């Protein structure tokens, strides 16, 4: 049900304004109207916003993503530890944060440098590995070897020039030596290794440079006497660097683990403080007094009053009133349902909240959703599996939505088991084969009509309930066309039901006359309430009831699929293939049963049932509170 709300006006003396706002923040009950203008600025606000931005920046730099695991105790600890005057604390944190950022920046830069160096060494190592045998042979024989980046066309010219030059300087064949080895890299660039006598090294450099060649150099810090030694140094570097990187990563991870929750807690405190300052600015100032207005649930009034009275005595004055009909559209909506039906409030999260003073359909959903879903699944075995699924969802997940989902699944499982007993199904006909299980009502794979009729009866009851709720709301909100349409629809439906029952001979013939009268009255009301549209809507209501046949249809397909699974055992015997195929079909059926049953049951509620009375358009109740559970749990 929708909780009654009160409009609260809190008058207080200005000197205690920040304390009163902090108390309201602690209480976490008051829902504030959204501000009319958002450009409220002050040096305090700007400093806090800057601090918040810095904190978020540092948290991102730390790669800390533990928002979901942040505990309320972390925030309480930070709140207790930082109990200093506002200006002092903001400047102190900001100063410390700057120092922390600098140190963190150094570590992050070091990590980046190590990563870059590793990539460079890896590339150099790959190049040298390619020339390894060439380098080893020529360097060990005392030749001078150099590596050059070149164009393909320039290379031929440069090598010819070198060869000619060597022939010119040393015409006698003895001692004349030149060897080269080209290497085209995957990206198209070309490297050439040239080995000559030591005396020709300068000449080689001169010619290569004149032919647009660029000398290959090892990464800084790894250059040695000759390329072979350079290669060894690079290899050594490649072995050492990962260890260094691991150490640095581990340091950064530890820093994130230690400081992440603390900084996140400060971020949340800054956020809260920002809200308090914002509220302070939003409050109406009346000289020595101020005024804050908002909404609270009526059942929380005593808590607010006693807290304000205890802490501020005569420094605060509170007025309250129930909202007028004109204000109903502005009243925030807070739902209050029993422990068993509260998880079903999840269904309203997909829609806009209901309007104030309308009907909360949660209790009806809690009753009918699992009933319909269970009727579609209708198998004791599947029901037990669904129960385990729901149970593990509840046990393992800390998330409230998953917890609620677990309860819904458990409810559906209980109804699935109950319907399974009625249909005599345990993984299809496995129950019958193994334990001689018999249906308590009918075997739905054979008796289709009784199940179809039952689903239509359930649908009629569901739709009639929806129309009654719509009628009640129409009367309550004094909307003539609404209550007339709903009454007209109800009369037409009752007339059709009455006529059918009479024709079947279950009721005396006189009832047919009453049904006919009801039909005429219904049609008049429909035309008077909604014109031709009203008549169309009544046809829609009949279609809506027929739509509930899907419960039988999906159930029938599920039952037949389960029988098909058993057939595999009949055909292949108790072989590995037979068991594998049977289990595969059961798995498929189970997934379809859960998915289909949930979606179609939800659809019957959203479209058929709630379409009769639910309009949405309400506003969520968002109290001014500390550490709003989901606000700071950013994924």
């Amino acid at each position, binding site marked *: 049900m929708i909780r009654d709300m009160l409009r609260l006006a809190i008058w207080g003396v200005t000197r205690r304004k920040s304390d009163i706002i902090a108390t309201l923040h602690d209480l976490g009950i008051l829902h504030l109207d959204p501000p009319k203008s958002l450009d409220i600025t002050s040096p305090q606000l700007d400093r806090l916003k800057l601090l918040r931005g810095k904190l978020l920046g540092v948290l991102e730099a730390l790669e800390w993503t533990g928002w979901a695991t942040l505990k309320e105790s972390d925030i309480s600890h930070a709140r207790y530890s930082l109990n200093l005057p506002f200006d002092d604390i903001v400047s102190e944190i900001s100063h410390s944060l700057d120092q922390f950022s600098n140190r963190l920046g150094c570590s992050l830069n070091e990590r980046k440098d190590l990563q870059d160096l590793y990539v460079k060494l890896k590339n150099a190592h790959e190049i040298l590995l390619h020339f390894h045998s060439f380098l080893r042979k020529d360097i060990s024989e005392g030749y001078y070897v150099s590596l050059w980046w070149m164009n393909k066309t320039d290379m031929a010219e440069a090598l010819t020039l070198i060869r000619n030059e060597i022939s010119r300087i040393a015409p006698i064949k003895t001692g004349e030596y030149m060897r080269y080895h080209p290497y085209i890299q995957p990206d198209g660039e070309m490297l050439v290794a040239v080995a000559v006598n030591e005396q020709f090294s300068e000449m080689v450099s001169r010619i290569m440079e004149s032919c647009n060649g660029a000398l290959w150099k090892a990464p800084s810090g790894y250059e040695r006497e000759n390329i072979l030694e350079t290669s060894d140094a690079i290899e050594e570097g490649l072995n050492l660097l990962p260890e260094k990187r691991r150490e640095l990563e581990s340091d950064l991870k530890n820093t994130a683990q230690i400081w992440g929750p603390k900084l996140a807690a400060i971020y949340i405190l800054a956020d809260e403080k920002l809200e308090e300052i914002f509220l302070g600015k939003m409050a109406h100032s009346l000289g020595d007094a101020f005024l804050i207005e908002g909404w609270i649930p009526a059942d929380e009034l005593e808590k607010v009053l006693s807290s304000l009275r205890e802490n501020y005595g005569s420094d605060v004055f509170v007025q309250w009133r129930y909202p007028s009909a004109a204000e109903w559209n502005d009243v925030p909506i807070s739902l209050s349902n029993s422990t068993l039906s509260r998880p079903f409030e999840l269904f309203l999260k*997909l829609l806009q909240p209901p309007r104030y003073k309308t009907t909360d359909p949660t209790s009806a959903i809690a009753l009918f959703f699992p009933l319909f879903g269970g009727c579609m699944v209708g198998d004791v075995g599947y029901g037990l599996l669904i129960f385990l699924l729901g149970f593990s969802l509840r046990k393992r997940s800390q998330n409230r939505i998953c917890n609620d989902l677990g309860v819904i699944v458990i409810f559906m499982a209980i109804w699935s088991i109950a319907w399974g007993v009625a249909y005599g199904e345990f993984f299809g006909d496995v129950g019958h084969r193994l334990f001689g299980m018999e249906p308590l009502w009918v075997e739905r794979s054979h008796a289709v*009509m009784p199940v179809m009729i039952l689903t239509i009866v359930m649908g009629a009851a569901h739709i009639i309930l929806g129309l009654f709720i719509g009628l009640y709301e129409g009367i309550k909100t004094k909307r003539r066309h609404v209550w007339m349409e709903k009454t007209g629809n109800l009369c037409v439906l009752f007339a059709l039901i009455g006529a059918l029952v009479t024709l079947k001979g279950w009721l005396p013939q006189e009832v047919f006359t009453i049904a006919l009268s009801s039909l005429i009255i219904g049609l008049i009301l429909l035309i008077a309430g909604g014109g031709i549209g009203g008549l169309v809507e009544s046809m829609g209501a009949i279609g809506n009831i027929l*739509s509930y046949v899907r419960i039988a249809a999906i159930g029938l397909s599920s039952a037949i699929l389960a029988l098909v699974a058993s057939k595999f055992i009949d055909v292949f015997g108790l072989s590995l293939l037979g068991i594998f195929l049977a289990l595969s079909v059961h798995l498929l059926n189970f997934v379809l049963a859960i998915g289909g049953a949930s979606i179609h049951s939800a659809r019957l509620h959203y479209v058929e049932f709630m379409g009769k009375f639910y309009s949405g358009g309400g506003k969520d109740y968002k109290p001014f509170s500390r550490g709003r559970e989901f606000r700071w749990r950013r994924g």
Partner: protein
Amino acid sequence: MEKGIIALAAALAVGIPAFATALAQAKIGSAGAGTVAEKPETAGVMIILEAIPETMVILGFVVAIMLILQFA
């Protein structure tokens, strides 16, 4: 022969609406995918919308069952 025609009629009663439903769901699905890409919070509503045209098949199924039970 007569049974064959009844079976064909029942198959058509389910098959034609199933084809129409598939066409409708294809359009809703593609529009829904676009919507969910821009507003992920609409995923739940889109799943429900995707299931809406299935009413046609359900009604076809009712007709098929009636045909088979009444005449076959």
